[in-house]
């Protein structure tokens, strides 16, 4: 059963009477890459975490097209600061497969194939915590992709990376998108947004201000706030 479309209606996040984001209404469907942009503190990370189910809704609803348990298995998340498990690089990568019930040898063989794909094979036996920032993010990305998720959420995965590491990450992402994984990614890098986006969600003040195809958003933004943001003005 397909995971998408995802329907979000009147969804709000918050705690102790304070609303972080919402109400959010949107429908995520189809293929390709959705880029979430907006100023700092606008709610990009919270929106991604909410869609992935890492935050509990205070109001509203969020429905995948398949049962929740199945939906959870079919999606993955890459965090802005990669979370490395206290294991070797190979064992970090094999971990999701082992969770899925694959036996150790088969999981390690699959993980080794993925390490080749992301150019981390020489580091297979190293402690994951000793990797550089770029290597960590590549490992986190491979670990998220190894179970072929239908939807992959990425929270500014290239935030602290140099140009070369960013290019490598983008190549992996484009490969995943070509293979059919739906990407939903936040970024501050407008160049990256233009390179990768098929559609854009512009978030401001905890609300989805604009959600449109990338060409239209970048050429003819619907709202003055989006226009100002694209011009590089300070938008609050």
């Amino acid at each position: 059963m397909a995971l998408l479309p995802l329907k979000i209606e009147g969804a709000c996040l918050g705690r102790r009477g304070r609303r972080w984001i919402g109400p959010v209404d949107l429908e995520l469907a189809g293929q390709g890459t959705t880029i979430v942009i907006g100023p700092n503190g606008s709610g990009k990370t919270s929106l991604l975490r909410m869609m992935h189910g890492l935050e509990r809704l205070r109001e509203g609803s969020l429905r995948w097209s398949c049962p929740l348990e199945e939906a959870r298995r079919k999606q993955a998340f890459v965090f802005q600061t990669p979370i490395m498990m206290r294991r070797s690089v190979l064992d970090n990568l094999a971990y999701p497969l082992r969770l899925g019930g694959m036996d150790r040898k088969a999981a390690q063989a699959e993980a080794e194939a993925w390490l080749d794909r992301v150019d981390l094979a020489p580091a297979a036996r190293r402690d994951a915590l000793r990797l550089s920032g770029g290597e960590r993010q590549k490992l986190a990305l491979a670990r998220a992709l190894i179970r072929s998720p239908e939807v992959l959420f990425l929270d500014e995965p290239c935030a602290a990376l140099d140009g070369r590491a960013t290019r490598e990450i983008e190549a992996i992402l484009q490969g995943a998108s070509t293979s059919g994984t739906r990407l939903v990614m936040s970024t501050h890098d407008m160049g990256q947004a233009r390179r990768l986006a098929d559609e854009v969600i512009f978030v401001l003040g905890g609300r989805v201000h604009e959600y449109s195809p990338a060409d239209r958003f970048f050429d003819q933004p619907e709202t003055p706030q989006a226009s100002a943001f694209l011009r590089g003005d300070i938008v609050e």
Partner: protein
Amino acid sequence: MSDLWLGLQQAVWLVITLNGDLVEITLRSLQVTLTALVVASALALPLAALLAVRRFRWRRSVIAVLNALMGLPPVVVGLIVYVTLSRSGPLGVLGLLFTPTAMVIAQVIIIVPLIASIAHQSLRELWSDYHDLLISMNTTQRQRIATLLWDGRRALLTAALAGFGRAIGEVGAIMVVGGNIDHATRVLTTAIALETGKGEFAMALALGFVLIALALLVNLAIHWLGQTERGGRW
């Protein structure tokens, strides 16, 4: 000073000659303490992991009680176990009083809170690192606990060693429930207490030195087996 020197000499002599009584007492000390350590670890480590990953209403209170129980007076534990296992007690029918099993039970009660409390401190930090990742991967509670125990194993070794240290040096509880019976329940600590009572300070010191050496050896062996401080950053 002469007693110390004499004790050290006697300890060396007892070890070199593999004194029969010493070997028997030492082996019993090891048997009782290691058994208690294994049982206590099997109870305390999953409990520590559960307290780290699971949110429930009385969680904070349970942690507070666990921390408080680290200072449990061993003699009182011994007394409670004694009453429970004595003929008129609820478990008297098992006939365990004055056996090594009773000593193991007392030691387990004493070291479970210690191991669980120290382990919980480490696992709580590890869980805060792993929380988002493991939730995101849709892990079950059992998988989360297993992952924390595996990835935190080196820190957990320290908790287990603290438990071993407390158990091997314990005298009050096991004297009460074991009875310090020769060739049956006598261990190094109760033997030291006995020799001191008899005024045989040299012999008591000799046994003390053997006890210290034993504790150090077991600690070193566990560190070596666990590869602590080798390789990784954790």
